[in-house]
């Protein structure tokens, strides 16, 4: 099966700082790929660049065989890429339901409706008329995922789901991922919570200071290798590429 998302030799600069340095990665349909790494490792920048919010200084992004590197954000959404941004970015003055309906703005065809999202997160049903700013962090996160699904994406990018969430709220959200993936959705998620990432992902990449230090299947990676790549100690860099 050919890759849904193919990122090759991608570099992104924030002014003088090279936040992402020649990263290669692929995501196929029905697969969860996780990006782990410390704060400031460039994970979010990578995800935002794939969504089109940053312009890369080098490299290409192919989606479904098509070069999308130069496309604006809204055109990538229309192509089937949806990002759930860090910090959730609710439309605060809109109702929960209107947040979800706004998610369908791109008019991509597909199975997702407000009722389908309510099936996924049943509590939304009784709170759909509330304004989004009244929800708790975990609830907002769920609505943000629902809103992204409303665009009927083929690739879902999840940025730091765990940030500011209670373990229970997070568990509920991670519990729905396998269901989504089994329907053929590709997921690329960024996570600081390494254990969480290892438990859901088919493949993991570890970023350190913008570079890919380690890649592989969770079962093939030892905790000490991951630790070394995460913190930049030891010689874990040697294993890059082997497991791809």
């Amino acid at each position, binding site marked *: 099966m050919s890759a849904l998302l193919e990122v090759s030799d991608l570099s992104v600069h924030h002014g003088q700082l090279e936040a992402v340095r020649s990263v290669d990665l692929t995501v196929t349909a029905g697969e969860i790929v996780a990006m782990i790494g410390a704060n400031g490792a460039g994970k979010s920048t990578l995800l935002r660049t794939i*969504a*089109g*919010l940053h312009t890369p200084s080098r490299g290409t992004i192919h989606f479904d065989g098509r070069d999308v590197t130069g496309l*604006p*954000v*809204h055109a990538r*959404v*229309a192509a089937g890429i*949806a*990002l759930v*941004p860090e910090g959730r*970015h*609710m*439309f*605060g*003055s*809109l109702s929960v339901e*209107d*947040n979800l*309906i*706004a*998610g*369908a*703005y*791109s008019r*991509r065809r597909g199975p997702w409706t407000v009722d389908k999202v309510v099936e996924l997160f049943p509590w939304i049903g009784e709170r759909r008329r509330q304004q989004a700013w009244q929800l708790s962090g975990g609830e907002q996160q769920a609505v943000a995922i629902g*809103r*992204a699904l*409303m*665009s009927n994406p083929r690739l879902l990018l999840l940025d730091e789901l765990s940030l500011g969430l209670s373990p229970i709220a997070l568990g509920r959200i991670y519990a729905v991922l396998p269901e989504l993936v089994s329907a053929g959705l590709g997921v690329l998620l960024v996570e600081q919570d390494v254990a969480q990432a290892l438990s859901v992902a088919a493949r993991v990449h570890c970023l350190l200071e913008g570079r890919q230090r380690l890649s592989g299947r969770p079962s093939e990676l030892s905790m000490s290798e991951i630790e070394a790549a995460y913190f930049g100690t030891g010689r874990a860099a040697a294993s890059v590429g082997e497991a791809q």
Partner: protein
Amino acid sequence: MTILNDIIQGILLGGLFALFACGLSLMFGVMDVINLAHGDVAVAGVYLAVVLIPASHIPALWIFVLVVPAFMIGGYLVQRYLLQPSLDSGAITTLLVTFGLSIVLENVLLEVFTANSYSLNVGSLVSSSWQVSSQISVPYLDLVILGVAIVVLVALQLFLVRTRTGRLVRAVADDREAAELVGANYRHLFAVAAALAFGTVAFAGLALGAYTQVSPTAGPTYLLYGFEAVVIGGLGSLWGTLAGGLVLGVATTLGSQVDPNLGSMLPHLVFLFVLAVRPRGFFPKRAVT
């Protein structure tokens, strides 16, 4: 009883202020643009009508069917190709560009129409009024203007709440990046907001032209009232703007009752008072609702 009459007149006038100010409120609420040319756009509406009425043989009362769509298209284009590039280079640039637009509009009107004032002849509406009681009489024109203001504000609100594009205009005011992430081109949405602002202010300009004589340089005076209505109501809140317009209208008529000069000063004093007591206005909102 005369006080009651003044208050009624003030409310009628306030409708016009609100109609004028809602576009200002919308552009600030959605894309943080303070449009210093807003008053001049309203005045330009009167002059376009002055040209179009004899050319199209449409009576003055119905000329809005041409002027309002023309201004909406104009607003869309001005935002998309003049204000958006300036927004990309900073808020101060945008302020300067709208200031420049104001000067250009005024001088073009002066060049073409000289300094002569014009008004729109809407026939018997101007002279006749509804005698409610011996003390209270309401001019039909004022009633029509208040009616138009309410219809336009309700239509604007319905558009923002009920339609796909309107919902995203509110959404982009809350969070531009998130609006992009649901597949919206925010430049298009900003231009839609500007189209609505120019359309409503064209209505306000036509109402103004039916109400009184308008000169090419009158824009900034109306702009001041518009700003005051927006600030009293709370920045970015549409219903607050309506309330602010009504407060200014009542202050104007009550003031004139005491002394004609006070009529033009009292609304500004009320504004200063509100600014001192409630700096964020009466209905502060983070975004348009």
